[in-house]
């Protein structure tokens, strides 16, 4: 046996037989991380923590929830009124869904801005898009569970998307419903799937992390780590930075839970589901709005569904659409410009998705939808041919040292360590 790695003999005994401590030390402690990460790199760990919060509060909520059309709404109201701290747990879970999407969307746009999807991180990126898809399915089914008006009609509209499939569409929808409308069998299966999918997400997140740790994090200047001088150990440098980010996030999250818990929800969902009456203005949760806008922009049922799913599918092939060898926007002036156009386009789609599908909104939705696909399918493949990128630094350390007024001091300090 090689010399003991850990001070605690019990830890050593276990580690010799099951190297879990070596693994944790390697991946969470000494794990070399680029030293120039900015705060946008906090959102990965924030997403992981939010997933844990969602699973923990979800498990305790399920202990008090009844998945039956006659009891679901009342059991949620009972959670709000009678169950000890039930209001808190439900508001955390409800707002947690929104915050999960906020965090993940920032995480995704971070990846877009700094080219984190490029070789050799293509599978890391694809796994991330898969997590987004699973999150959307989970969030949608979770929204059905309180069995309010929005739950019911959201479920009806979204499941009806599948009826656009030629020939077998109607049969698929009947199969999804377990009947001829959204009813008790639908609620039961959605509850079951809403419970199990988060654990599937945990599985994909683990793969996401394995892929991440293969080559380590990308960084703001997007060039590869050249050696030890470019990295710092994950602990304590990034554990403390992630914790600080978490405390800021938790403060905002707590403010939402305690002071405006229903801000991101819809009041109609406090009306019990009524299969006979559709609410006048039906919109999905905010995090689906851009996709909803794309769905409505296409004046054809099947086309709308295809374009909506296409908006996510295009992300899967992004690493092969953008062939520029430079990762970070910092050295791609044109890409940077188009990145911000895309951000504005997505926000516009989100706004248009919340507006009624009439008049000017329809025209704008179509323009915004066209631009979304234009960005990914035309601009990105063409850009490397016309863009002159800025010269890349030699290494991560080089610009930092030359930026320092006295480079020799920095070098001297490093030698002292």
């Amino acid at each position, binding site marked *: 046996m090689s010399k003991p790695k850990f001070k605690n003999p019990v830890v050593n005994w276990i580690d010799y037989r099951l190297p879990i401590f070596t693994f944790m030390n390697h991946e969470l402690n000494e794990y070399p991380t680029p030293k120039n990460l900015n705060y946008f790199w906090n959102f990965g760990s924030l997403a992981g923590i939010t997933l844990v919060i969602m699973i923990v509060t979800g498990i305790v909520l399920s202990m008090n929830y009844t998945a039956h059309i006659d009891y679901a709404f009342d059991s949620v109201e*009972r959670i709000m009124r*009678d*169950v000890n*701290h039930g209001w808190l*747990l439900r508001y955390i879970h409800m707002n947690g869904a929104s915050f999960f999407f906020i965090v993940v969307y920032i995480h995704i746009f971070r990846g877009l801005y700094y080219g984190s999807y490029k070789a050799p991180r293509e599978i890391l990126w694809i796994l991330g898009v898969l997590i987004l898809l699973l999150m959307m399915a989970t969030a949608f089914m979770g929204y059905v569970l309180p069995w309010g008006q929005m739950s019911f009609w959201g479920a009806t509209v979204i499941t009806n998307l599948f009826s656009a499939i030629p020939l077998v569409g109607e049969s698929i929808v009947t199969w999804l419903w377990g009947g001829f409308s959204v009813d008790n069998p639908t609620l039961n299966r959605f509850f079951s799937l809403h419970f199990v999918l988060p654990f599937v997400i945990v599985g994909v997140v683990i793969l996401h992390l394995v892929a991440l740790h293969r080559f380590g994090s990308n960084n703001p200047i997007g060039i590869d780590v050249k050696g030890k001088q470019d990295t710092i150990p994950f602990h304590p440098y990034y554990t403390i930075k992630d914790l600080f980010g978490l405390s800021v996030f938790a403060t905002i999250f707590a403010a939402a839970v305690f002071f405006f818990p229903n801000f991101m929800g819809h009041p109609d969902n406090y009306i019990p589901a009524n299969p006979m009456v559709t609410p006048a203005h039906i919109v999905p949760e905010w995090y689906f709005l851009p996709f909803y806008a794309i769905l409505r922009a296409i004046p054809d049922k099947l086309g709308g569904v295809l374009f909506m799913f296409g908006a996510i599918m295009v992300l899967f092939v992004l690493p092969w659409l953008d062939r520029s060898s430079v990762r970070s926007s910092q050295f791609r002036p044109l890409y940077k410009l188009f990145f911000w156009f895309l951000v504005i386009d997505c926000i516009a789609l989100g706004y248009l998705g919340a507006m009624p599908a009439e008049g000017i909104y329809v025209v704008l939705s179509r323009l915004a939808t066209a631009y979304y696909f234009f960005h990914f399918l035309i601009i990105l493949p063409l850009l490397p041919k016309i863009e002159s990128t800025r010269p890349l630094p030699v290494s991560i350390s080089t610009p930092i040292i030359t930026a320092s007024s006295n480079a020799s001091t920095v070098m001297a300090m490093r030698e002292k360590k």
Partner: protein
Amino acid sequence: MTNKNTPDDKNKRDFLQVSTYALGAVGAASFVWPLINQMNPAADTLALASTEVDLEQLEEGQAITVTWRGKPVFIRHRTKEEIASAKDQLLDGLRDPQTDEERVQNEKYIVLVGVCTHLGCVPLGQKSGDVKGEYGGWFCPCHGSHYDHSGRIRKGPAPTNLEIPQYSFLSDTLIKIG
């Protein structure tokens, strides 16, 4: 930078570290508590915690079982012989010594939680045909505990007498359990 390692500085750092851990622990505990407390009885469950029973129809020698907090409560209108037998019992021979007077409010009616104090089965003895055990009160079929006319444990594995619920007589024949 020059006084980085002075004892003062070290004390300050220790204090900051300890107070950070302490505050973190308080924060974690205050998040964990709602997760645990949600499993305690909810407000609507607690609101169902009392039951009223009218004993007008309960003849001497008869017994009824009512539900209180999801558990059976035995109410028996005892005969004169049963009362006498319960009262005459000397405390010496009892595992959980209690006089009959301590266990009733009106000696005609014995009110008991019908759950064996051994492992929670419901003892027999409420119906006229039931096995009532060697002491004529109740008999638990699970592990053979025998209870007398006062619901006191006399033989078998149960450690204590049948529990008396909190109750009060609202009138001569109307009682409120809980």
